[in-house]
């Protein structure tokens, strides 16, 4: 058990908590936050497994992947928040699923 | 060389002490205005002492100038943020705690 393994374990825990919250929450801001936590867990795992040989320089390919992933995740966060503001302005709701009524009789 | 190291270590320790003072003020002060005081004054003084201590051990002149610039940038941004928050809080009507404050009567 060395330092990158420790951080990889943290990434796995963060991913599990994020996907749990992503499934059970319906508020869209909470879903976006949970999605960001999930992404952070995956990035942490990727950078931690880039240290393959202890003491040597880390593998640069996962670093490039993670850099791209951070930029993509922040652009998707911005896009999701703009969609959320549009949904709120049109319907006054902050969730796509209304938990008080059943969804079986809806067509779309 | 030895003398410089001692001075540098003392400055870093003093900076850590002012950070501790800022955190204690953050926890113990009663209202938003005094907490702003703790965050923007004590923490930035701690950062300045820390940067001064690291400047003595910097490897070149540009590194020293960069450390000083980091401190000045932190001063400018935190002064701006402090003014905005305090002005908005006063105009919003958050009441400052006046008179003698007793630690038992936490608001």
């Amino acid at each position: 058990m060395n330092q990158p393994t420790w951080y990889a374990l943290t990434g796995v825990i963060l991913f599990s908590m994020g996907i749990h919250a992503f499934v059970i929450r319906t508020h869209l801001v909470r879903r976006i936050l949970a999605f960001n936590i999930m992404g952070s867990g995956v990035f942490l795992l990727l950078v931690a497994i880039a240290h393959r040989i202890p003491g040597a320089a880390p593998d640069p390919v996962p670093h490039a992947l993670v850099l791209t992933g951070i930029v993509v995740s922040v652009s998707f966060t911005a896009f999701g928040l703009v969609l959320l503001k549009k949904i709120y302005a049109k319907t006054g709701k902050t969730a796509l699923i209304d938990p008080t009524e059943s969804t079986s009789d809806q067509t779309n | 060389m030895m003398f410089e190291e001692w001075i540098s270590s003392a400055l870093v320790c003093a900076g850590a002490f002012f950070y501790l003072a800022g955190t204690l003020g953050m926890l113990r002060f009663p209202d938003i205005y005094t907490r702003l005081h703790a965050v923007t004054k004590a923490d930035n003084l701690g950062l300045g002492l820390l940067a001064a201590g690291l400047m003595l051990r910097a490897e070149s002149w540009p590194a020293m100038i960069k450390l000083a610039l980091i401190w000045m940038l932190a001063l400018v941004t935190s002064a701006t943020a402090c003014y905005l928050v305090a002005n908005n809080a006063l105009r919003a009507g958050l009441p400052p705690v006046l008179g003698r404050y007793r630690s038992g009567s936490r608001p």
Partner: protein
Amino acid sequence: MTALTWIFDGLLTAAMVYLAWSLLSERDLFKAVVLFIAFGLLMALAWVRLRAPDIALAEAAISAGLSGVLLLDAVGAIRSPNPVPEDTSSDSG
């Protein structure tokens, strides 16, 4: 690998896990957003500890600068007075 690095890494990872847990189970939306900004700052420190300063630069710029601004803007727009009543039943869960 001394004991001090273990203390630092243990504190950092424990704080990250606790922060993620408390922000995901927080009822107040604004509090969750502030906790998310703090989580981003700790993530930048974690990249530094993993010797990836380029990712730390990107994370500092994006999480401290961009994400917090966007989330605060969206939460402020949701909370602002609106003729349509806000759906509070989806908040609990």
